């Protein structure tokens, strides 16, 4: 490690090192910039746009204009607003599914790594087995079951809690996706956490905690997990683009997001229907989608390299 500040010798922390390495990585910083712009567009700028569900049948397939920056779709809805609102759903699915999988992955991996021995062997064998099953096959089966339940849930909520019917319908349409993806996406993550926990549990501060007579669970949750949290969350940025992709796949197959909700997958699917004459209906959502995935991948790669979190391979 080369110290730049010669006058005051300072220790360099993990995060400080990471930050300086990150700043040097142009691709990762570029990706970060695009993500910031995309987030601002989808979550702030979108509120100032026209209603994405405003149907205007006299203005179908309008070319780009001052009012409609990207033109309009088959029902005369503003494409730009639809892309931004669709982006909200796509990005939310990516983030929430990742959060679900991070929680499961951390707890599972930490317990497995901390317990060691036979428990560890069995828990990791289960992960191996699940990893060998094609992800999309499981996701489709789980999503089909969960979305069936969500129909019942909608009725129950509307009747018993008096929620707005449309809002509830929208919510229960996307919530199953969070879980279908999150409940199955934690496998690789749990291995990374396990590897880290195994190295941390040999450290002195854990020994000290044991010597102080703290309970196992307290050591695990108060002393070990906080130490693996940072790198794990950083690593999980790499799973966000994966989940966004799976959301689009499911929506494209008609198993995911449904009208009046929209997502990038839904928009691409709708766009593919009018391909011969109105190629922009496919291209523009596709462009936003790919650009986001591209940037998230570069950002995730950069963060992982900066922190040097090694993926626990087979």
């Amino acid at each position, binding site marked *: 490690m080369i110290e730049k500040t010669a006058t005051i010798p300072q220790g360099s922390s993990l995060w400080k090192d990471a930050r300086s390495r990150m700043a040097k990585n142009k691709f990762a910083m570029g990706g970060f910039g695009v993500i910031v712009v995309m987030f601002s567009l989808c979550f702030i700028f979108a509120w100032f746009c026209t209603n994405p569900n405003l149907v205007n049948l006299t203005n179908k397939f309008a070319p780009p204009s001052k009012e409609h920056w990207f033109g309009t779709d088959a029902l005369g809805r503003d494409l730009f607003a639809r892309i931004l609102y669709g982006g909200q759903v796509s990005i939310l699915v990516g983030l929430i599914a990742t959060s679900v999988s991070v929680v499961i992955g951390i707890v599972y991996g930490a317990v497995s790594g901390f317990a060691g021995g036979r428990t560890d062997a069995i828990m990791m064998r289960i992960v191996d087995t699940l990893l060998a099953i094609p992800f*999309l096959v499981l996701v489709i089966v*789980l999503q*089909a079951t969960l979305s069936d339940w969500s129909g019942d849930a909608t009725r129950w909520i509307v009747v018993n809690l008096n929620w707005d019917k449309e809002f509830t319908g929208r919510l229960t349409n996307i919530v199953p996706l969070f879980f279908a993806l999150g409940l199955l996406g934690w496998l690789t993550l749990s291995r990374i956490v396990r590897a880290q926990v195994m190295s941390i549990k040999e450290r002195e501060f854990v020994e000290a905690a044991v010597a102080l007579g703290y309970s196992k669970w307290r050591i695990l949750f108060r002393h070990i997990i906080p130490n693996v949290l940072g790198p794990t969350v950083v690593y999980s940025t790499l799973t966000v*683009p994966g989940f966004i992709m799976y959301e689009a*796949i499911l929506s494209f*197959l*008609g198993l995911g997001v449904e009208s009046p909700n929209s997502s990038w997958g839904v928009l691409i699917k709708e766009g593919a229907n009018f391909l011969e004459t109105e190629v922009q209906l496919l291209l523009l959502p*596709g462009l936003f989608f*790919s650009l986001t995935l591209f940037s998230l991948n570069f950002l995730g790669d950069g963060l992982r390299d900066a922190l040097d979190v090694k993926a626990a*391979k087979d």
Partner: protein
Amino acid sequence: MPRFLIDRLLQGVLVLFALYTITFFLAKAMPGEPFTSEKNISAETKANIRKLYGLDKPIWEQYLAYPKNIITEGSFGISTSKGRPVIDIITQSFPNSLILGLCALGFAIGIGVPIGILSAVRKNSWIDWVCMTVAMVGICIPSFTIGPLLQIYVAAHIPGLKVAGWGNLEDILLPSFTLGLVSAAYLARLTRGGILEVLSQDFVRTARAKGVSPIQVILKHTLRGGLLPAVAYLGPAFAALISGSFIVETIFQVPGMGQHFVNAATTRDEFLLLGLSLFFGFLIVVMNLLADLLTGLLDPRVRHTGGTN
């Protein structure tokens, strides 16, 4: 060797069993019944149909009956939405999916590996930069965008190519290209990494010092070890091809298994869903085993420890 094989086969059985268990109970947890969509049928008829499909038995009996029927009779049940034996549907659609998958794998290897080698050899040059950016773009642009674009910009303009459909030899081209593209991108990245690692080793330096030509260094000394990560990826690549086939078969209207699987999930066709998931699982287990054996063949270090790493 036999010990390693037995170990892997046992693991394969375990995987299939887990897959079956999960799919079975999820299918049972679906609130809809397979027959509710049909017109008003009397309760008596319904009960008869349920009996016919064995759905009237207790859930544990059903759970055990399905694998038993597969082993003793080779029967995967009867599709409730199509009214045909699931095994018929599989034998009919599998050849199409297999051809599509193999051609896609061909495209993936044919495009991915050379690009990976090229960018490893010209590391940090503009060629490397272009190749790796293209590979990243390939990973990030979904097949459901590339597929339709190929349909209008390629298929519509080249005589002989159809926009969608299946039956002639040339119909295979576009779907398998679309399907293979993502795996090609991953293979390119893995090949580049593998070759770079080998190139930095002492024996390569020795070979160069002896005056071996750069091409010979790559072909004779580097390729075998450098391709290991790519070979190990073949198992996952095959899983990716199966997932991708769900989409590509929908876009190009290929009568393969992927379409049936998606339909089974949307129509709550329990037996078709079970049969196809098990079949997909079986294919993955076999492909992973083959990839492992191939790795052992290329890398003697793996052979003795018996397994990947």
